[in-house]
C-alpha cells in the first residue's frame, strides 16, 4: 500500500466555505474532487499538500447538466459517469459519451469529475480536448462570490497549470449550442483505460452543405490540449469531402508538437494526429448532415 505524507482534511459545506478555506490556507491547500488524479500523486509523494478540502459534499450544488437554448451548463463536480450517461448531452454533443467511454475505467468514472479533469490540466486529458473542441468556457469563482468566465485557451496556462488562482475554484463549464453541428471523438490507447497515445475531438457545423465552422481539439500532442485554429481555418467555407479531411489532418499534424515517450514516438503521434483528426472530422460531418 502506498501511503501519502501527513495532511489535514476538511469537508467543505458550501462553495464559499471551500473558497474561504483556500483563501486562508493558500498554496499549501488543494481541493479534492474525485481524487483520481490528486491521490495517486500524493501516494507516490510526487505532490504533498498540508491541507485537503473535500468538495464532494457539494455535489448537490455542483453536479448538474443543464441544457439551455444557447448553451449547456455543466457543474464542475459532475462525474464522468454522469457525463457518459446523460441523454441530453449525447444528443447535443455525441463527442462527450464517445470520449467518456474511453476514459479510464468504471471505478475511476464513478468518482472523477469534469472540474478535476480540467483543473488537473494534464496534456493527455480527454475532457480538456472535448471542451476545447466544443469551444467551452469556464466559470471560475473567487472570494466574495466574484466570478469570471474564461475560454479554454485562457484556462489552460501550461501543462498542469490553469488560470484558476490559489483562492479560486472552477464551478461550471458552458458549452455553446449552435444548429447544424456534429461532433465525434477518436482515441488511440495502448490498452483500455490507458491515457491517450493521441486523441482527437472534432466538431463540424454545416450550413447548406458547406462547413460554416469546424473545430478540432487534440490531446497528448503538446504541452496542452490544443485547439487548432489552423485546422478550423482550413475547413471553413469548404465542402466536407474526404480529401478536405485528409488535408485538415495534415494541417493538424503540422501544427502539433508531440514528444517521444513510452506511449509512442513523436513521429507516430504526429501520424496519429493526422489520422485521428481525419477520422473524427469524417464522423462529425456525417452527424452534422443527419
Amino acid at each position, binding site marked *: 500500500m502506498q*501511503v501519502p505524507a501527513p495532511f489535514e482534511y476538511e469537508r467543505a459545506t458550501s462553495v464559499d466555505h471551500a473558497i474561504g478555506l483556500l483563501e486562508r490556507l493558500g498554496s499549501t491547500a488543494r481541493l479534492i474532487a474525485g481524487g483520481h488524479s490528486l491521490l495517486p500523486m500524493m501516494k507516490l*509523494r510526487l505532490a504533498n499538500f498540508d491541507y485537503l478540502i473535500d468538495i464532494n459534499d457539494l455535489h448537490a450544488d455542483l453536479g448538474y447538466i443543464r441544457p439551455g437554448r444557447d448553451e449547456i451548463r455543466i457543474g464542475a463536480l459532475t462525474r464522468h459517469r454522469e457525463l457518459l450517461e446523460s441523454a441530453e448531452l449525447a444528443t447535443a454533443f455525441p463527442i462527450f459519451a464517445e470520449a467518456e467511454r474511453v476514459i479510464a*475505467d468504471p471505478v475511476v468514472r464513478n468518482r472523477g469529475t469534469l472540474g478535476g479533469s480540467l483543473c488537473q490540466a494534464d496534456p493527455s486529458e480527454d475532457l480538456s480536448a472535448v471542451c476545447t473542441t466544443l469551444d467551452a468556457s469556464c466559470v471560475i469563482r473567487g472570494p466574495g462570490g466574484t466570478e469570471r468566465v474564461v475560454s479554454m485557451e485562457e484556462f489552460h496556462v501550461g501543462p498542469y497549470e490553469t488560470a484558476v488562482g490559489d483562492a479560486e475554484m472552477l464551478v461550471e463549464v458552458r458549452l455553446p449550442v449552435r444548429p447544424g453541428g456534429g461532433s465525434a471523438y477518436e482515441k*488511440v490507447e*495502448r490498452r*483500455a483505460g490507458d491515457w491517450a*497515445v493521441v486523441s482527437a475531438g472534432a466538431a463540424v457545423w454545416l450550413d447548406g452543405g458547406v462547413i460554416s465552422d469546424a473545430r478540432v481539439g487534440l490531446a497528448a500532442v503538446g504541452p496542452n490540449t490544443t485547439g487548432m485554429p489552423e485546422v478550423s481555418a482550413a475547413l471553413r467555407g469548404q465542402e466536407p469531402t474526404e480529401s478536405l479531411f485528409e488535408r485538415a489532418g495534415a494541417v493538424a499534424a503540422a501544427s502539433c508538437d508531440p514528444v517521444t515517450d513510452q506511449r509512442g*514516438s513523436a513521429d507516430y503521434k504526429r501520424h496519429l494526429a493526422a489520422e*485521428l483528426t481525419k*477520422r473524427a472530422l469524417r464522423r462529425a460531418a456525417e452527424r452534422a448532415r443527419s
Partner: protein
Amino acid sequence: MTTVHERVDTFHDNDQKPVGYGRMLRKEDPRFVRGRGRYVDDVQLPGMLHLAILRSPVAHARIVGIDTSAAEASPGVKAVVTGAMLAELNLAWMPTLSNDVQAVLATDKVRFQGQEVAFVVAEDRYAARDALELIDVEYDILDPVVDARRALEPGAPVIRDDLEGKTDNHCFDWETGDEAATEAVFARADVVVTEDIVYPRVHPAPMETCGAVADFDAVDGRLRLWSTTQAPHAHRTLYAIVAGIPEHKIQVIAPDIGGGFGNKVPIYPGYVCAIVGSIVTGKPVKWMEDRSENLISTGFARDYIMRGEIAATRDGRILAIRTNVLADHGAFNGTAAPVKYPAGFFGVFTGSYDIEAAYCKMTAVYTNKAPGGVAYACSFRITEAVYLVERIVDCLADELGMDPAELRLKNFIQPEQFPYTTKTGWVYDSGDYEPTMRLAMEMAGYAELRREQEEKRARGELMGIGIAFFTEAVGAGPRKNMDILGLGMADGCELRVHPTGKAVVRLSVQSQGQGHETTFAQIVAEEIGIPPADIDVVHGDTDNTPFGLGTYGSRSTPVSGAAAALVARKVRDKARIIASGMLEVSVADLEWSKGAFHVTGDPGKSVTIQDIALRAHGAGDLPEGVEGGLEAQICYNPSNLTYPHGAYICVVDVDPGTAQVTVRRFIAVDDCGTRINPMIIEGQVHGGLTDGVGMALMEMIAFDEDGNCLGASMMDYLIPTALEVPDWETGFTVTPSPHHPIGAKGVGESATVGSPPAIVNAVVDALKPFGVRHADMPLTPSRVWDAMRGHAQPPI
C-alpha cells in the same frame, strides 16, 4: 496413445461432484469470493510494528555516508537500520538462488534503482514511510551500465566490485549442443535464415505484492515468518543458513497468496529485513512492499537478446537450429533455477522438431538493473526458448514461401520416436504432435481463415494468422541433477485417513491460486475413493507439511501430484490388508473399485474405505503385523521431467491507419497428459493466454539511459484487461506421461509459454504486405507502425 477431444465450453458436469478426476468447482473459492482469504497483509499480531524500506533513487552510486539521526527522532520510530549495521551482524549480504550474493542492505554501493539501502521500523505504516524521507544518504554517482550489449566493453564501469578480483561485468558463459556438428549441417544446408530476436524484460506483477510478518521470540529462540513465498521449505532452510537460526526453530507460513508467477520464489532483502527488525525490536514486524517497490525491485523475467539461425532444405526439412544469446541478469544473479542450469531449461530451444543438430552459446552479464531472471510463468526459460524457435520457424516459412502450419507438420517429432532425445540432451517423455496441431487447425477453420486473409489483403485490410507449437519441460526434477542450493527437487507428501473416513493430505507445494486444494483432493480421491469434499489439503506451513521444493516451473502436479497419488496408493495397500482381515479372505481375492474392496466373484461382500478407516483405528484385531492407523508418507523423486505440448493459433486484425492490434480469435489446444480437473486446467490456460497478450502487445520494464526504471507503476507497466482478450477457444488432446504415476504433465505455464509467439507470428503475418519478417515485442501501436514503415526497432 493420444486421444483427441472436442473442445468443451460448458460447465455442465460441475455438479456431479466427482469422486476423482473431473470438472468440479474449486474447494478454496468460497473463502475467496467472500473476501475471507487470509493473506500476509491480513496477519495482525499484538504489538506488531511496521517496516518500510529506503531504496536507491539511482542506478549506480557509491554510498558516501548515511545519516539516520532525524529518522530515529521521528515520531513512532522504533529502529532505523543500515547496511553498516547489518554488516556488523554479518547479515549485509545473502546468497541468491544462483550461488551469487545479493546485498540485503547496500553497504558499499547501490547497483540498481530501487535497491534496498536502509529500513525503518515504526508503530504504523505511515510513521515508517514518513521517516524514510528523513534519512539522508550521500551518494557519489557512478556511470551506470544499462545496455547489456555494452556491459562487456573495455572500460565499462565494473558493477560487482564486491566480488574478489572482478574486473568486468561478465556473469557466466553457458553452452549446449554440438557446435561443430551444427556448423557442418549449416554449411551444407540449402537455406539458412537468421533473425535477431529480443525477449524484453517483463514483470510477473502479481496482484498481491511481496511481504512478510516476522515474529522472533527471544526467549525460546523461535522465528515464525508469514511470507509471500512459493517455496516455504526451501526458504526455511535458507533462513537457517543466512540468519543462523536453527532450522527446527523456524516456521515459515505461506498463507493465501495472491498470485506468484515466479515472483515469490526468491528470498528478497525485505524478508530478511523483517526478520532482523523483529530481532532488533523484540516485536512482530510486518513488511509489505507497495506496487512500485514490487515492480522496480523484485524478480523480473526474460531480458534475452537472441540471434536465431535455422538451416533447412529447400523443400522444408528443418536440419539445425543455432542461437547466440546475451542474457541480462541485472545487478545480482538472483535467477531461481536448478543450479546446474544457469540458463534454466533454455536448452529445449529445438522445439517440437526432429532435427539433426543444435547449438547454443550464451553469455550472461551484470547490468545496473534489478536482479532476478526467472519469473513470470516461464518454466525456467522455456518461454524464451519456445519464442525463439517458433519465431524463427515462421521466418523460415516466409523464406521458403511455405505455409507455417505445413512446415511445422512436416518436421514434428513422430509419435514412435518417443522417448525422444533432443540434440541438446533432453529426453521428451511422450508426445503425439500432429493430432494436436490438426485439432487446433480444425477448430480455427484454418483453410477458411487463409482464404479470408487473402480477400482482405486484396482490399488493403491487415489480418494475420499466427501459429505456435510448443513442447515444455516441466516438473523439476530428478534429484541426481536438479537441486537449488544443494536441496534436491523431490517432494514429500503425507496422507492421514481419520477414523470416520475423512482425510488430510499434507503437501510440500504451495498454491498461489492454482487450485491445489481441489486438484490434490481429487488426485487422492481418485486413488482411495474418498470424495474430494472429505479430504482436507494442508499446504504452505513448514511445521505442518513434509519437506519439498515448492511451486514453480509447473512442478506441483508433475512432482507433488505424483507424490499425492503414490502416498494414496500406499494407504490403499494397507487398507487392502485390513480389508482382507475384515472380509476373511486373502488379499489376492480382493478387488478394488473406487472406494471399496470386494471379494472377487462376490461383489456383495465388500467393505468401503470408510469401514476400513474405522477398523484401522477401532477395537478388534487387525491382521498379523499390521499397525493401527491408516496413514502414509512418501518422498517422490521424479525419474524425468514431463513434456506437455500444445498448438496455438491466433488471429489478429491490424488497423492500417493507427497500427492498433486486435486479437480477434485465439485457439489453444493443450496436451498436458491426464486431466485432473478440466475446469482448473482451462482457468490456468485462460490466465496464461491473457499473460501472453500482455507480453506480446504491451508489457515491458524499460529503463532510460541513466538506469531509471520506466515501469514503476501500473500506469507505466501495462497489463491486459478483459477488453484486450477474445473469448478463448480451448481444446485438448491427452498423451499421458509414461513415467508419472497418473500420467499428468502439468499445465500451469503452458499458455504463457505458447501464446506470445502465436500472437507475434500473427501480427508479423498481418504485416507481410509491408515486407515485415520480424518485429519485437511489445507490439504497441507505435512499434507496429514503425514496422509497417520498415523501421522495426528492437525494444532495447
